[in-house]
């Protein structure tokens, strides 16, 4: 018996929305590709595979076609071949998160959780905001935890593996169906509704080359005036703690405001000297990367919602909240935890954690 997923292992195959960054594809080829993709979505894998193979004959390196082939093979349960394809894609395009992610899904299917975890780590490293990978990684850890618990409690281990596989296949079908939406025209990013978080990546194309199609519908003004203090749900009733909680919240809103104002120096001042940089990089490296991200976007709004406070002790308080990030090119919502420490009479961020 197994105890794990109360929710099924929601490992999702990421959709590769490649049109953006694979540059010039001639129209005829693009039509072929669209056709293959349509067949794939319709569940006609054999036909889809034929089309893709034709495409690959003329341009064997094409990432988009190779990725689609990987998806088709995955659906056909040709796991080993699919692994080979995604694996090669990670080698040729190490900056793309999706192949890593799908590789991880396949490894997880095989019960190779360590490999799956490594692949997801790489996926997230290439694209930190990649929510599917984050979610998958959480699931992988939950699976690994389940294995450990089974050993701890001496329960039958065989079943756990089997369940994973079942849960996975189901998710594959459902997610590949809804995750990928047809791109109407070439070179256009995915329509916003699809999966906001699978925002296409990375390769910093020259600024002029891409015109982001941000629907102006984003309610810019509504986004994130700091919530009034009564939104706070203090977890403790001690007056001293209340006092600290209020200070901490004020700090968190200040931090979000500095970020929203593109005010790099005051933003950075919210971080403690001993702030744990996310990947163990040096403080100056981290600051440099933050500067770029905070100063660049024309308009950022960072909203803090439903903050929950957890007091560790008088000098250490964690705040978990829903963070709404809103910039002209990206809208992301997710849970964030700031571990705050009191230095002198200031609360500063010692650690910044992402996840639910």
């Amino acid at each position, binding site marked *: 018996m197994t*105890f794990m997923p*109360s929710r099924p292992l929601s490992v999702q195959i990421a959709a590769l929305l490649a049109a953006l960054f694979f540059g010039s594809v001639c129209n005829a080829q693009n039509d072929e590709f669209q056709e293959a993709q349509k067949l794939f979505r319709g569940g006609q894998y054999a036909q889809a595979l034929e089309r893709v193979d034709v495409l690959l004959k003329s341009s064997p390196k094409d990432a988009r076609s190779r990725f689609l082939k990987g998806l088709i093979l995955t659906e056909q349960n040709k796991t080993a071949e699919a692994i080979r394809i995604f694996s090669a894609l990670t080698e040729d395009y190490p900056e793309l998160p999706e192949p890593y992610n799908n590789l991880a899904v396949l490894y997880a299917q095989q019960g190779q959780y360590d490999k799956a975890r490594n692949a997801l*780590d790489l996926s*997230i490293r290439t694209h*930190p*905001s*990649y*929510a599917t990978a*984050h979610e998958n*990684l*959480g*699931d992988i*850890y*939950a699976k*690994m*935890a*389940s*294995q*450990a*618990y089974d*050993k*701890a*409690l*001496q329960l039958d281990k065989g079943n756990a593996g089997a369940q994973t596989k079942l849960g996975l296949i189901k998710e594959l079908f459902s997610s590949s169906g809804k995750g990928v939406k047809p791109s109407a025209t070439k070179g256009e990013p995915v329509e916003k509704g699809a999966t906001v978080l699978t*925002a296409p990546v990375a390769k*910093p*194309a020259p*600024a002029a080359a*891409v015109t982001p199609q941000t629907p102006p519908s984003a309610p810019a003004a509504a986004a994130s005036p700091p919530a009034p203090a009564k939104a706070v749900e203090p977890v403790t009733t001690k007056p001293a703690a209340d006092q600290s909680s209020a200070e901490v919240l004020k700090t968190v809103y200040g931090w979000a405001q500095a*970020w929203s104002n593109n005010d790099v120096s005051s933003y950075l001042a919210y971080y403690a000297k001993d702030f744990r940089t*996310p*990947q163990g990089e040096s403080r100056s490296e981290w600051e440099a*990367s933050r500067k*770029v*991200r905070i100063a*660049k*976007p024309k308009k*950022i709004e*960072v909203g803090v919602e439903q903050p929950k406070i*957890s007091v560790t002790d008088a000098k250490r308080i*964690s705040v*978990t909240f829903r*963070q709404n*990030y809103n*910039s*002209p*090119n*990206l809208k*992301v*919502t*997710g849970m*964030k*935890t700031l*571990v705050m420490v009191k230095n002198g009479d200031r609360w500063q961020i010692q*650690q*910044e*954690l*992402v*996840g*639910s």
Partner: protein
Amino acid sequence: MLALPDLHSVNAGKPRPLITAVITIALLLWATPGTGAQEVRSKNATKTQPNTPVVEPESALVKTLVEIRNNRLDEALIEVNTVLASYPNFRLAHLIKGDLLLSRSRPLKELGEAPNAPREPVEDLREEAHARLARYNRERPTDRVPKFLVKLNAEQKHALIVDTRQSTLYVFENRNGEPYYLTDYYVTIGKNGVDKHKEGDKRTPLGVYHVTSNLPRAKLPDLYGSGAYPISYPNEFDKREGRGGKGIWLHGTPSATYSRPPRASDGCVALTNQDLDILGKSLQIGITPVIISEGIEWVKPEAVTALRKELLTEVEAWRKDWASLNIDAYLQHYAPGFTSGSQSLDEWKQQKRSLNASKTWIKVGLKNVSVFLYPGRNDLAVVAFEQNYSSSNLSNQMRKRQYWLREKASWRILYEGSA
């Protein structure tokens, strides 16, 4: 130009758990009664252990918990993996590993978060965690000795004391008659605790015993692990008190698991196989004393020396009076409630008087005297020796055991018999 998304940019690559929840695990453990919030000491340095394996699993496990408390979760995971590499059947380590992994996908509230897991085994492992932490945190008074070990004889190379409250078996070495702490081990005792009364009560007896035999692994079911050493329960005092049952052993652990919860046996004292193998080398059949007690009174060595002198003086007075043929003086050493086998004090007196009447001389020599104070009682001591008896009409040699009871200021014999 696409904006670089920010939500997940921090801590990318290592999604972190909600730290506070994990700290709670550690705090829960730290709050064990008797453990307090004290710092965990580095016990490795001071703990001398024969044949120390590369990874000492208990201290490595405790180190893991310390890492968790200090919010160094990656390090904790590395540490627990190290433990598991050497001890793949260490179930508690698997449980902690499960928590560390799960904490990356959801917050945890307590140790052993395993979703939907049956309660009992999880509780068992929690208890083991508490017991091991408490063991680790407890300061052994290095300048003191257990009051029980009044006198070891020259034959007894080691003495064992099981402290049932601490889930710990202490090994003392006999150095010129003085006990020296050698090492200690985590042990499992009876499901229902201590103070065994009858067959099947799943309790561990409290008393002074010794190892009576060695049952090698090959002859035993897997349940007993790498071997078993039966001990002398019920002893003469247990029988006087009407205690029953039998088959109390020191033994190992089934192959499927590295260790068992603190309370899990049918009354036996179970060690890990690795520990039993090492301990087995120190055990002498028929000789090594095993004292089982709820708690240990640690006293200054001078206090033991004084008690030793007091009891040996009484024993010597008894020997002298016996050899003197002064039957009244000799019988003065026996307590009102005395028994020997089925004999009452009166029957004993009568027999001794008639025997003595026929003798013109008696010589009594005592060798290899050992004295142990009985657990839970400051008024009862177990004295054992080799007795070399000769007289005008009879001579013999025997091993004898006496239970001496203190009444007011003087010690008198409550039981005497061959050992």
